[in-house]
């Protein structure tokens, strides 16, 4: 079923390190096929009706009015919704969240689906949805971080411990010569990928084909199969392109399930695409946090304690507590270290992973608190961080697999011109009288791996085929993974076919955790290596080959030929080897994951340092980020161009976090007041100038065989704090919540 990919050929240059995207031409010509671009014959359009209350029950829907509208084919409500094999309120596997698929008439949050309208046209479905005019029995919603009594969750985020303590916290506090005790708040944030969630579902008997953007293609195949009572192989997921994911497209949501159900119910293909305002509800978000940080230092400015407590909002019916406090693990060499999480249940959708889950808000608070501590101690914020530089992982004492953070600090500071920064705030102005401030923050993100498989085939014509069900949501997987695969096969890029993005291929794992290149790339590398090993066996065991007797370890693959390692004049082309062996394709298989022993042996992180300059209008307090320099060390860089784009994107998410993004809930109704792109601000082009990314060289022999860490999420970390600190440095006003807005600076004027 991968022929869809042929509709959108992927081209790219095949020389140099910074290759342009292989799918670049498809993306600039409009031929890249995103889920909702599909239009099978007989298509029905689905529109879901969002709840306009946050807590209560639906008491009436005017189904007759909707059905009477021309073009409306069916209205699905809890009354007539066909059964599902899997309970939406169960949690049968990892990454399963409870969701709403019209299992009853309860409303758990605003924008939850309460009915689904199917029609011959999108316009009729939209109108039908409006005509349902729901009536409710509404209850007062619980809102905000004080909306209910806090509870202690079993885990923070996805499977991380709720509380982690290293050392004696009380002793750490007692030993401090100076300390700070500060509380920072961050708001609810929504992924808002430019492509809203979409699905085109087509049933053929008990087999369903889904055009759906997925960050976990093979895993979701099994999940959809579970809910519909069919084996995984009866689900085909086609996800050649994702219009951004940022965590939200790894999780199954209710509207998707309803659309697939509707297709089975009507026997026709169904397309559902969430409207933008519906992106503020059933498809996850980042919960709000309130983080208390207590830092103590001794007379030599060494941290005796780093005590980070976080309270985060979650839903009333499922638990995902943003693991913000974990940002304080792994970075600074504090004598005692605590990360503790609490949750509060409110009438909102369940939060989930959003780009840099935990670390983004956690780093924002931590890096600002570090700045506050440094100022109190009277030393430069960078010097303070160097003073507390961890040579081994704090608490565990594990060696780092690699850590070029010192180089990041040095190169970033040099490029930015950090030296000579006055310690006190409100010291600098520019030629137009704008207040100028400089701030910095450390960036940190773990370098995990998931599990992946891949297949590599060498064909009789000397070309290669590589396969793994990877997801390219913009990070550049199609390009970077193909580069890895080509290298492993000793072939130029234009002689390999790279198949990806569908569920009939080997599992590439989740595109998340900044681990996709390392994981799927590792599997491709292993598969390619395996194929070359088998090819070498054919050659070195064949008396007619010039490589006869060289031994497997004695040959290397380069440019479509095997060469004797010690004698370059002995070589033979792949095509010749395969042809003489009878012409059968040579297949290699590979997998990648991290062993428990490897995890135990080393602490593995990407690192970075971000330096920000802001200018603040002294009268109007308009804030502009005028320079942002990030230096990052993330192991081996496969494609510097795409890496720079990823890091810059992350840093701009940092600008967004620091200055713009915030969902505002109406405390009375529980509805989000700014649930659109006019009200929910993300940066526009004019907000972004003066960005620079430095990738710092780092060899990592331990993290995985390829030495790859990740760059997808680290750009946000460090950046938010750097901007907050720069605003303080410009104005003297310490704002302890995000986003920092114009009125926040008024009080300090």
């Amino acid at each position, binding site marked *: 079923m991968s022929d869809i990919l042929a509709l959108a050929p992927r081209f790219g240059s095949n020389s140099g390190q910074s290759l342009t995207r292989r799918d670049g031409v498809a*993306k*600039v010509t*409009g031929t890249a096929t*995103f889920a909702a671009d599909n239009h099978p014959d007989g298509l029905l359009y689905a529109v879901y009706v969002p709840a306009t209350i946050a807590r209560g029950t639906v008491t009436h829907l005017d189904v007759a009015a909707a059905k009477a509208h021309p073009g409306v084919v069916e209205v699905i409500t809890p009354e007539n919704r066909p059964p599902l094999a899997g309970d939406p309120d169960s949690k049968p596997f990892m990454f399963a969240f409870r969701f709403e698929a019209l299992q009853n008439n309860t409303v758990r949050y605003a924008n939850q689906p309460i009915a689904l309208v199917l029609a011959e046209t999108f316009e009729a479905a939209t109108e039908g949805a409006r005509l349902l005019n729901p009536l409710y029995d509404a209850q007062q919603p619980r809102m905000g971080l004080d909306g209910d009594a806090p509870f202690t969750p079993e885990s923070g985020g996805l499977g991380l411990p709720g509380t982690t303590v290293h050392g004696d916290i009380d002793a750490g506090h007692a030993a401090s010569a100076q300390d700070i005790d500060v509380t920072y708040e961050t708001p609810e944030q929504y992924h808002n990928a*430019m*492509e809203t969630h979409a699905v085109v579902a087509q049933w053929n008997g008990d087999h369903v084909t889904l055009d759906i953007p997925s960050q976990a293609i093979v895993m979701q195949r099994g999940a959809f199969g579970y809910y519909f009572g069919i084996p995984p192989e009866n689900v085909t997921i086609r996800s050649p392109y994702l219009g951004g994911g940022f965590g939200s497209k790894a999780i199954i949501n209710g509207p998707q399930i309803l659309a697939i159900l509707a297709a089975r119910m009507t026997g026709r293909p169904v397309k559902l695409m969430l409207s933008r305002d519906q992106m503020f509800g059933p498809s996850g978000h980042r919960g709000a946090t309130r983080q208390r940080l207590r830092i103590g230092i001794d007379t030599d400015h060494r941290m005796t304690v780093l005590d980070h407590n976080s309270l985060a909002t979650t839903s009333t019916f499922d638990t995902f507590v943003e693991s913000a406090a974990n940002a304080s693990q792994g970075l600074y060499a504090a004598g005692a270290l605590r990360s503790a999480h609490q949750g509060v249940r409110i009438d909102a959708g369940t939060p989930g992973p959003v780009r840099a889950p935990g670390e983004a808000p956690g780093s924002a608070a931590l890096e600002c608190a570090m700045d506050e501590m440094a100022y109190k101690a009277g030393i430069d914020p960078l010097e303070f961080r160097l003073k507390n530089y961890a040579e081994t992982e704090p608490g565990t004492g594990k060696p780092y697999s690699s850590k070029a953070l010192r180089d990041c600090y040095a190169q970033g500071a040099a490029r930015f011109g950090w030296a000579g920064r006055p310690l006190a705030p409100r010291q600098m102005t520019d030629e137009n009288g704008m207040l100028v401030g400089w701030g910095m923050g450390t960036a940190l993100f773990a370098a995990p791996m998931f599990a992946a498989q891949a297949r590599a085939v060498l064909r009789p014509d000397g070309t290669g085929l590589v396969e793994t069900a990877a997801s390219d949501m913009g990070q550049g997987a199609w390009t970077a993974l193909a580069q890895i695969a080509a290298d492993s096969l000793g072939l130029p890029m234009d002689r390999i076919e790279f198949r990806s993005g569908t569920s009939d291929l080997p599992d590439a794992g989740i595109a998340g955790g900044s681990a996709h290149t390392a994981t799927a790339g590792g599997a491709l590398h292993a598969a390619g290596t395996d194929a070359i090993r088998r090819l070498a066996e054919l050659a070195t065991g064949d008396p007619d080959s010039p490589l006869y007797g060289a031994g497997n370890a004695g040959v290397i693959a380069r440019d479509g030929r095997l060469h004797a390692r010690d004698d370059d004049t002995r070589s033979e082309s792949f095509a010749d080897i395969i042809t003489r062996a009878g012409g059968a394709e040579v297949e290699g298989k590979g997998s990648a994951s991290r062993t428990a022993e490897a995890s135990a042996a080393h602490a593995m992180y990407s690192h970075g340092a971000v330096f920000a300059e802001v200018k603040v209008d002294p009268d109007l307090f308009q804030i502009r980020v005028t320079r942002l320099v990030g230096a990052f060390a993330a192991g081996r860089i496969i494609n510097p161009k795409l890496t720079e784009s990823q890091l*810059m994107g992350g840093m701009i998410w940092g600008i967004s976090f620091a200055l713009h993004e915030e969902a505002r809930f109406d405390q009375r109704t529980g509805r989000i007041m700014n649930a659109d792109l006019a009200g929910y601000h*993300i940066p526009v082009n004019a907000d972004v100038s003066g960005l620079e990314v430095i990738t710092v060289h780092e060899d990592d022999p331990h993290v995985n065989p390829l030495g790859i860490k990740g760059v997808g999420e680290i750009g946000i970390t460090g950046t938010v704090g750097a901007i907050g600190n720069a605003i303080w440095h410009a104005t003297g006003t310490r704002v302890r919540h995000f986003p920092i807005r114009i009125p926040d600076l008024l009080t300090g004027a």
Partner: protein
Amino acid sequence: MSYTISLTVNGDRRDVTFEDARVTLLDLLRERLALPGTKKGCDRGQCGACTVLVDGRRINSCLTLAVTLDGADVTTIEGLARGDVLHPVQASFVEHDGFQCGYCTPGQIMSAVGLIAEGDVGTDPERIREGMSGNLCRCAAYHGITEAVLDAARRMTDDKTRKSA
């Protein structure tokens, strides 16, 4: 009631009949004319993903009712390249990595083509950033987008100068 309009799409004259006055140009292109390159990002004129040229000017196709376009000349992302030869703005977006996921890209590119044709901003990066600010990019490829538009604007100006010389 049914509506019939005649419009030119990417150079082809099309007569289109539809039953519903609520059909937007965006949905007409995507769901009825098999031109899904133009993307829906918000359906409210707030993100620019659906930008196309109508009579040479960039507009949000999600805010334009198809019925209002009788006689109009529409250019979409599918109509920019000439065979295998990319439009300079398209080529420049690839070269400068002016996108990541690619979803806002058709709108960005059509907006850039419109911007350059307007001729108001020349090669001033500040004005280009402002002029491209109606097109949101959540991947935040803004740096590459600005570089791409600058480069394309320069190339197209050079071409024009050469041709007129």
